[in-house]
C-alpha cells in the first residue's frame, strides 16, 4: 500500500512541478488526438448527416459497416496503416512511419467510424416533422442542413467527444505507427506502458491521472454545454 501511496505522491509532484518530459508527453497526446478528432469531425459529421438523410442503394449495409468499425481493434488499424507506410509499403517513400503524422492518420481511421456512426444515429433520431417543417418555411438545402445540425447538436457533440475519448486513450495505433520515440512521438498511453514496465510507477500514475482528468474535463464540459443549451 505504501508503494502505491508513494507513487501517488510522486505523481502529484510531477504534475505540480510541470515536469518537462511529462508536459512533452501530454502535449503529444493532445495534439495527435486533437488533430485526428478534428479531421474525423470535418469528414465524419457531413458524411454521417448525408447517410442519415439521403436514401441510396446499400445505405443499410453502409450503416452496419460503420457500426462494426466503431469497435475496430486499434492494433488492426496500426497494422493496416503500418503495411502502407513501412519501407516496403506503397506509401513507404513518404517516410511517415514513426511520426506524429502517422499517428494522426491511424487515429483518424479509428475516430472516423465513431463520429460518422454516432452522427447517423443522432440525425436519424431527430423528429420526423423537421423536414416538412423546413420545407413549409421555405428553407433551402443549406439552411435545412444547418438546422438539422443545430437540432442534432447534442448528439453530434456526443459523437465528437466519443471519438476524442477513443483516440486519446488508445495505445495500439500510437505504439505501432509512432514508435514511442522520446520527445517526438511518445504520448500518454505509450509512455505509461513504458514507464510501468521500467518500474517507474510514479510517472505512469501521473500520466494516468492526467488521462482520467482530461476525460473527466471533456465530459463535464459537454454536460455544461448541454445544460446551457437546454
Amino acid at each position, binding site marked *: 500500500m505504501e508503494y502505491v501511496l508513494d507513487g501517488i505522491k510522486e505523481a502529484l509532484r510531477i504534475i505540480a512541478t510541470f515536469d518537462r518530459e511529462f508536459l512533452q508527453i501530454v502535449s503529444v497526446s493532445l495534439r495527435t488526438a486533437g488533430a485526428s478528432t478534428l479531421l474525423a469531425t470535418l469528414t465524419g459529421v457531413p458524411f454521417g448527416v448525408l447517410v442519415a438523410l439521403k436514401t441510396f442503394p446499400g445505405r443499410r449495409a453502409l450503416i452496419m459497416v460503420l457500426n462494426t468499425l466503431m469497435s475496430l481493434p486499434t492494433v488492426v488499424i496500426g497494422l493496416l496503416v503500418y503495411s502502407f507506410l513501412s519501407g516496403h509499403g506503397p506509401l513507404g517513400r513518404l517516410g511517415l512511419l514513426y511520426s506524429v503524422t502517422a499517428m494522426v492518420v491511424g487515429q483518424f481511421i479509428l475516430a472516423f467510424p465513431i463520429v460518422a456512426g454516432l452522427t447517423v444515429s443522432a440525425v436519424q433520431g431527430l423528429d420526423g*416533422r423537421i423536414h*416538412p*417543417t423546413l*420545407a*413549409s418555411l*421555405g428553407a433551402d438545402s443549406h439552411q435545412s442542413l444547418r438546422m438539422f445540425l*443545430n437540432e442534432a447538436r447534442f448528439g453530434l457533440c456526443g459523437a465528437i467527444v466519443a471519438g476524442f475519448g477513443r483516440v486519446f486513450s488508445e495505445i495500439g495505433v500510437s505504439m505501432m505507427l509512432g514508435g514511442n520515440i522520446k520527445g517526438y512521438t511518445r504520448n500518454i498511453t505509450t509512455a505509461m506502458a513504458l514507464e510501468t514496465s521500467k518500474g517507474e510507477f510514479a510517472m505512469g500514475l501521473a500520466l494516468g491521472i492526467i488521462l482520467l482528468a482530461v476525460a473527466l474535463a471533456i465530459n463535464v464540459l459537454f454536460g455544461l454545454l448541454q445544460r446551457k443549451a437546454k
Partner: protein
Amino acid sequence: MILYDLKDTVNVRADFKLAIEACRIEPGIVYAVTGPNGSGKSTFLNLLAFIERPLKGSVVFNGQAVNYGSPNELLRLRRRTGCLLQNPYLFNMSVYDNIGYGLKARGISNSDIRKKVARIMDELALVHLAGRSAHALSGGEAQRVALARALVLDAEVLLLDEPTANVDQSHIRVVEELILRLNRDRKATVIVATHSLDQVYRMSRNIITVMNGRISDIGYANVFSGVLNEDADGLKRVRLDIKTEIRVAEGQPGPVTLAIDPQAVILSDYELMSSALNRLRGTIVKIEEAGGSVRVFGDTGIILCALITRKSYHDLNLNIGKSVWFTFKASAVRVID
C-alpha cells in the same frame, strides 16, 4: 383568375390515397377544408403547400404548371405560402427565433424581422414567451407560436392545418379574427383545414369537404344567416326570410349563422307529425349523386339540402319539381354566433 387548379391529381402514401378529380381555388378567398380524421385534409394542404408532390395529374399555380423536378421552382413557390402543418414542430431554439425563422430563410433584414416578429407576437399574446425555449411551452402556446411563424411571413397564400388545435377557448376567436383580417386587409388566400364545423361556418362560406381521400362539395349546403329571437316562453327561432323561420335549440338573440347537416334532414311526401319542430314544404330543384348517396335540393323559401340513401330516393320516387316536406329537429341546427 384561378390561383390553384388541380386536375386528376393523385397522391399516394403507404396507406392512403388522395384523388382529386378537379379543384379550383380562387385568390383572395377564405376556404375551409373539412372532413373526418384521416380523410385527407392534411395531404391536400401539403399538396397546396408544394411539400408533397402528386404521383399523377397536374397542379397549376397562378396559371403555371408546377415543375416538381425543379428544386429552385419548388423553393420559390413554397416561399409564396405561409404554412402551418398539422401537429407542428418547433425547433429547439427560442420562441422568437422560431417565429423569425421563415423570414430569415427568405433573407429579410434583421431589423424587419424584429418589427414583424414583435407585431405578430403582440397580436397572438406571445410577447412574454419571446426568450423561452420553444420546447418548454404548453401545447396551446406551442400551437400559437407555430401559427405566428406561418402568419408572420405575410404570404399571399396561407395554408393552416387545424390552426386552433390545443389553443384555449379564450384565444380561438383571436386567432380566427387575425386570420380573417389577413384575408381582408392583405387579400391573402386562406385555406384552413379544421374538423370543427363551428369554425368552418364562422370562417368561410367556401367549404371544401374531403371524404375518404376524395373532394366533395357536400359542405356547401345548408348554411344560412338570420336573426335569432327568443320568445317569452323560451322558444328560439331564426327568421331567414319573409316566409321561412327555423326553430333552434341554442344560441343568443342577435345575428347568427345556421348550419344544418344535410344528413339530419328527413324527406317525406307528407307532413310528418313528430317531435321535430322544423317542417318546411318545398319543391325539388336539383338532385345529385353523392358517392353512394343522393343529395336532394328543395326550394322552401331557402334552398335546403337533404342527403338520403339511394333506396329512399327510389322509394319516394323523387324528381325535379315534385313537392316534398323537409323535416329536421331544432337540435340538428348548429347556431354559430
